[in-house]
Every structure is written in C-alpha cells, then in structure tokens.
C-alpha cells in the first residue's frame, strides 16, 4: 500500500448551512479544509468574498477550555477511578453526551464554584502562612511573661530587641549595669542568629542606655502590635491556624463532592473542543452575503461517499476532481500491519511527497533486521517481544502507541533471530556454540564483512526504489542513466575491493576482481558521459559528469557506515558476557552472595539492554535516513489533517 490518492473538493453552499455542513464533515472525518486566505489577497477574489471573522469567538472558546481544564485538573486530585499505565479514551454514548451538553449550565456553575473555592483556598493558605510567620516571630519571646504592648510605666521604659548572635551578652549586661545601675537587663532567649533581650530602665537614663546598646548593635523589636503576653498570642495564633485548616479541609471536602462531575466536565471539555475546531474551519472559508465557498482534500476512496452524503442533505454545489499533476496534496499513508509499524520512523525524517512511493514497506524489514543485529542478544529480544505482546494484548492503546509496540515486537523477533544465528543468549558463553550460523564474538571479522554486504544490499535496494519512482514518473531513460549505470560502477567498485575484505580468499577472487576493474571503468565512462546531461554547455556537461564520480567516495563511506552493525552488536554481547562474569565472580557460598549475584545479573542486563536498545533504535534509524533515504527519498510532504471529532478525554459512540 502506499500514499492515498487525494481528490480536490470544492463546495459552494448556503451560509445558513455552513455550520451543519462542517459538522457533517467532522463526523465523517475524511475532509481536510484548506486555508483560502492567500486567495483573498488577489484583487479578483478580494472584491467578491470576505473571510468570516470569528477570531474572537474562537478565543472565547479557548478561554472556556482553559477554565474547564483547570477544574478537571483540580478534581483529578480527588479522582478515585483507576488509571492504567496506558490510558485510553473513555467511551461515551451519544445520549450521555447530549444530556451533558444540554445541561451544561449546571456544569458551568460547578466550574465557577470550583474556581471560587480555589480562590478561597489560596486566601486561607496565605492566611495560615501569615500566622505561622507570626508564631515564628513570637517563639523567641515565649518565656517573656510581660504584656507585649506594655511600653513602660510613668517613670520607666520597657524595651525589647535583639543583638546579633556573636555579641557577648554577659559583657553587655555588665557594661549596662556599670553605666546605668538603674536598669534591668535579661537575655530572654538565644538562637543561631540573634540574642533576644529585655531591658527596663528609668526614663531619665534613656540616653545612656541607648548609647551602650547601640555599641552592641542593638535593634528594637516590633512587638507592640501584639496585645497580651507572647504565650497567649502563640496560643491564639495556633488556634486560628487550626481553625483555618479545618476550613480548608471542609472546602476541600466540598470540592471533592464535585468529583462525580469530573466525567461530565470531560465531556463538556471535548464538546467545546470540537466546537472550537469547527469554528476554526469556518474561519478559513470564504463568504459572500448568503453563500460560502470552501476547498479541501478528500481521499479518493471516500470521495463518492462524501458527495452522496452532502448532496443528499444540503442544497449546494459540490465538485470533486482529481488533483492536478503538479498539485501537492496532503499525505495520508495506508500500510499493512508490518509496514505501518515503522511509519513513525519515516515521519520523524519526513513524509513522502505525492510523486514518490511510500518507503515504509521496504524500510520495515531493513529497520527491524538491523535493529536485531545491533541489539544482538536473543535473550533481550525474547523479553522485548514478550513484553510488547503482553502490552498489546492486555491494554487498550491509542493508535500511535499500538504501532510503536508492534514495532518493538517485530524488533524483538528480529533480535531473537540474530541471537539464534550468532549464538547470543544473555551473553552466556556456553550457549555460543548453539549458533546456527557462526559465533559473533569468535569471528568478528566475518561479521564485519557481512555487515558491509548487508550495506551493499541496503544501498542497492535504495537505488531500486529510485528506479521505481522514476518508472512511475515515466522517466525511463533516467532509470538507465541514474540507476543502472550506478549499479554497474558500484558493483565494479565492490568487486574491486573484495581482496581487502578480511574473510575473502584473495586467490579465489582474482577473476572477480578483474571483472570489477572492467565494470568500474565502464561505469565511470558511462557516468561521465551522462551525469552532466542537464547542464547546458559542453564544458558543464563534462564537469558534471566527472564530478559525479565523487559519489564513489560517498558510496565507500556509506558502506563503512554499516560497520556499526558489527560494532553495536559486539558491544552488547560482550557487555552481556562481562555482566555474567562479574556476577559469578562472587560465588554462591552463602545466601547473601546469591542475592548479590542475582542483583548484579538483573541490573547489569537491564542496563545493557536499555543502553543498547536505545543505541540500536537510533542507529538503525540513522542507517535508513542517511544511507538509504539519501539514495532516493525526496520527502517534504505535509500530513493529511482532516476535520474530525478530535477529542481529548472521550470517544463518542454514534
């Protein structure tokens, strides 16, 4: 399968039908509405039509969505529903949906209440903070049993204040009693930063007292704002904190009583989300006084169905035509199970454009096999396949997650295959002999040679896809010039290099090497003659032809790049063996050691698996992107984004 052919859809309808038509499109979910703003800028169109200006409506809907989301998030703290590791959208029947939408006023009240309570809660919390701080301020004065707001008697002054912790308070007290005998001095308490002091003196001696205190860096405290003793104050503050806390929990209880509404709020959220999307689509259509015009794309396969439904329901002019030869339509990929699993890999690079073949079907086997070879250990593959099969069967998954899990399953199988071929099972050396092909760790050179061979196959496949693309575009001569000639030269080059490959018997291949030389020369001449053919003058043609030979260097570096197949596979199997070795060093003489051995085995293999699975994934992707796609892939397609019921929480059942 491949890229879905798109048809162009143009519709002129009555403005009064617009919302309904868009709603129908949404339900069908197969029409992408294109933005016609650019058309507006041309004078011809500008005079005739105008955009519907509903930006304000949309932003209102957006702010509504924010409000609901906030409430939902708030309630989710009290949500008692079980949530799985892989959560999927809840199914909601159309009746339930309609009831919720009809009674949305009640829900809006709930939302307002929640935000009201939320405000109250944050007020209460800041009140508690304030009180806690006050208590912290009073704590050092706890032992002081005089009234805090007492400034003194008629003849005396009562002064409270602090000096820094480093001040020697004994000396301060001494000096004070020497200078002003008519004073009372007491250190109330002391902490890591300050000493808290009480000084009582005759008013007439105020100046002298102040002079002494200033020397020691005394600063007045501000306790006058309290009335009563500090102990009383602390008690009453603690009590009010307790009251506030009670109030908070009672409000939280009230909010949690709304928890039942969470499901309904989710439905309302999605209802407004859908409405917003429809308004957005309405905003990009063109309007006259009574009619509107929209343009869009619809998959060829759904075109008739759309035409039927719309024409039956509405009075409108609907035209569905095939896309023009050079018109870029949005890309929708439809692939069989196996090929679809690597779609995300290809999409990370780029979507194909409409003129080329969807590469997923041919990428899939290469990706999976290279992944397997680079992870290399059949034991890891077994676990990977088992886990992904379990997840696939046990959980309901969103489409993307499902594809990824399937990819992991296939990668697991491929890893098992390579494990069996090369004798790698959890790095257990004794099992190396079970290798069906050869033992990787014993004969790395052999694997290096075959890695390069796999590279040749992969690159040739890439050129093959290029030939197929050219065939589809009916550029038959280009197939010979741009693909076949390269095959000739690359093959010559590869044969020429044969004696340098470690496992090849140099004597046996002399004939092939001679053939390679001829092919190399013939290929080079043909390419020099043809590769510059797009240049205008003769010098350009020659330069273009000769410089194309530089691609030979590119071919060589591409090939060497496949040596990573060996390197990563080797690294993971050697590390697996090392983990086993380290674990067994300890021996099994007592139970503690057995536990230790098991722990080292589990964590070691888990680490090795994680780091190498990641490595295999990214390197296998890279081999597709650079070495494979580089040969044929143009990319640059934009994804098909049909107008559809795009929800966050629920799946509507019609």
């Amino acid at each position, binding site marked *: 399968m491949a890229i879905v052919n798109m048809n162009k859809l143009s519709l002129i309808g009555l403005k009064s039908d617009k919302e309904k038509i868009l709603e129908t499109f949404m339900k069908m979910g197969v029409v992408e509405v294109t933005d016609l703003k650019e058309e507006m800028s041309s004078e011809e169109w500008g005079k005739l039509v105008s955009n519907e200006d509903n930006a304000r409506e949309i932003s209102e809907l957006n702010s509504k969505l924010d409000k609901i989301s906030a409430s939902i998030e708030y309630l989710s703290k009290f949500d008692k529903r079980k949530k799985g590791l892989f959560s999927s959208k809840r199914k909601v029947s159309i009746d339930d949906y309609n009831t919720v939408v009809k009674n949305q006023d009640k829900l809006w009240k709930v939302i307002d209440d929640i935000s009201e309570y939320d405000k109250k809660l944050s007020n209460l919390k800041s009140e508690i903070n304030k009180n806690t701080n006050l208590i912290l301020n009073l704590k050092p004065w706890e032992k002081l049993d005089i009234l805090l707001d007492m400034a003194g008697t008629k003849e005396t002054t009562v002064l409270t204040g602090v000096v820094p912790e480093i001040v020697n308070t004994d000396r301060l007290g001494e000096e004070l009693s020497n200078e002003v005998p008519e004073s009372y001095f007491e250190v109330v308490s002391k902490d890591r930063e300050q000493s808290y002091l009480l000084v009582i003196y005759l008013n007439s001696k105020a100046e002298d007292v102040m002079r002494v205190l200033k020397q020691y860096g005394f600063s007045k405290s501000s306790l006058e704002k309290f009335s009563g003793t500090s102990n009383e104050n602390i008690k009453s503050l603690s009590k009010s904190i307790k009251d506030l806390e009670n109030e908070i929990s009672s409000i939280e209880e009230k909010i949690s009583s709304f928890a039942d509404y969470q499901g309904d709020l989710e439905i309302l959220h999605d209802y407004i989300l859908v409405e917003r999307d429809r308004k957005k689509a309405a905003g990009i259509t063109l309007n006259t006084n009574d009619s509107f015009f929209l343009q869009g794309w619809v998959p060829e396969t759904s075109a008739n169905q759309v035409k039927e439904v719309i024409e039956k329901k509405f009075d409108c002019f609907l035209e569905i035509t095939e896309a023009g030869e050079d018109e870029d339509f949005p890309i929708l990929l439809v692939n069989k199970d196996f090929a679809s699993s690597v779609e995300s890999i290809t999409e*990370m690079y780029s979507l194909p454009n409409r003129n080329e073949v969807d590469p997923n079907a041919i990428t899939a086997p290469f990706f999976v096999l290279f992944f397997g070879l680079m992870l290399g250990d059949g034991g890891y593959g077994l676990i990977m396949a088992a886990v992904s099969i379990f997840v696939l069967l046990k959980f309901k998954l969103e489409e993307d997650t499902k594809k990824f899990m399937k990819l992991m399953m296939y990668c697991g199988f491929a890893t098992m295959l390579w494990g069996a071929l090369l004798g790698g099972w959890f790095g257990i050396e004794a099992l190396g002999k079970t290798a069906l092909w050869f033992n990787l760790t014993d004969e790395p050179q052999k694997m290096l040679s075959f890695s390069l061979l796999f590279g040749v196959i992969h690159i040739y496949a890439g050129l093959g896809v290029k030939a197929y693309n050219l065939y589809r575009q009916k550029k038959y001569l280009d197939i010979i010039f741009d693909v076949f000639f390269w095959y000739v030269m690359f093959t010559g080059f590869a044969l020429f290099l044969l004696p340098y490959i470690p496992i090849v018997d140099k004597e046996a291949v002399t004939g092939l090497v001679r053939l390679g030389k001829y092919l190399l020369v013939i290929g080079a001449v043909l390419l020099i003659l043809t590769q510059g053919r797009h240049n205008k003058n003769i010098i350009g043609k020659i330069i273009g032809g000769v410089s194309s030979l530089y691609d030979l260097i590119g071919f060589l570096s591409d090939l060497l790049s496949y040596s*990573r197949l060996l390197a990563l596979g080797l690294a993971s199997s050697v590390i697996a063996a090392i983990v086993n070795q380290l674990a067994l060093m300890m021996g099994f003489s007592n139970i503690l050691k057995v536990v230790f051995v098991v722990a080292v085995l589990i964590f070691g293999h888990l680490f090795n698996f994680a780091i190498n699975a990641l490595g295999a994934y990214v390197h296998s992707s890279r081999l597709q992107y650079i070495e494979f796609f580089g040969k044929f892939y143009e990319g640059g397609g934009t994804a098909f984004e049909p107008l559809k019921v795009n929800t966050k929480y629920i799946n509507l059942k019609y």
Partner: protein
Amino acid sequence: MKEFLTDGNFWAILGATIAFFVAAIGSSKGVGIAGQAGAGVLTEDPGKFVPVMILEALASTQAIYGFVIAFLTIGKIDISTAMALKDGFVLFFAGIPVGIVGLVSGIIQGKVAAAGIHMIAKRPEGLGRAITLALMVEMFAILAFIISFLMLGEVG
C-alpha cells in the same frame, strides 16, 4: 625497572587504562555538556524529558566502547607469567584509537547533542534530525572501536 618495562603485561595494562580512562573522560564531558543544555530546556518545559534524555545519552557510547576494549585487554593479561613484549605493544596500541577518538568525539558529540536539545526546545518534531546530526560524530568512535577490536584480535 628494565625488567618491568620489557614485560608485555605492563604495556597491555597501560593500553587498557588508556582505552577506558581517556574514552570515559570524553563521554563524561560530552554527556555533561548535553546535560547542562537539557536542564535548561527542562526548566521551561518538563514535558520534554524523554527526548532530552535520549539526546543526552548519545555521547555515553564512547565510554562503553572504551570499557569493552579495556575489559577484553585485561582478559588477555596474566600477571603471573611474563607476556611477550611484542604482544604487550599490540595491546597498548589497541587502546589508543578507542581512547583518543573517544575523548575527542565524545566531547564534540556532546556539543552537537546540546545544540540538538536547544533545537527540540523550539521544534519538538526535529528530534529525528537532532539525533541524526549527533550520530554523524558517533561514526568515528565506531570506526575507532572496530580498529581497536581488530588489533586486539592479533594477540592470541
């Protein structure tokens, strides 16, 4: 002293040291650079943890290659009997490609990964490209690993 230097074991152990020690410095530095960039991005958008983590981990492979070479080298050492000086030298030189190339490519790969992290902060869909750019640097560490490995194979 002379006895010491003419024993292949000494050179072999020096090779293992270079293979791991030098390559691991490169990886540490590289992962560190990418990690700092990642932390900056995560303060803005904690949701990008997974792609940032993937990019940060890329530069760690150099140390792994160095580790494998060092371990295999150690496996060939038997302190109780003298090793031929020739073998010792082969093992010594085998440690150098994976070590030195690991040092340089680790640091540079870390820088590329950091730039990639900044890129995905702005365009999350660019993850594939960011990884590919960083893997371009990895190629040289892979080649160095293979060369070191093949050199090890010369000693029985």
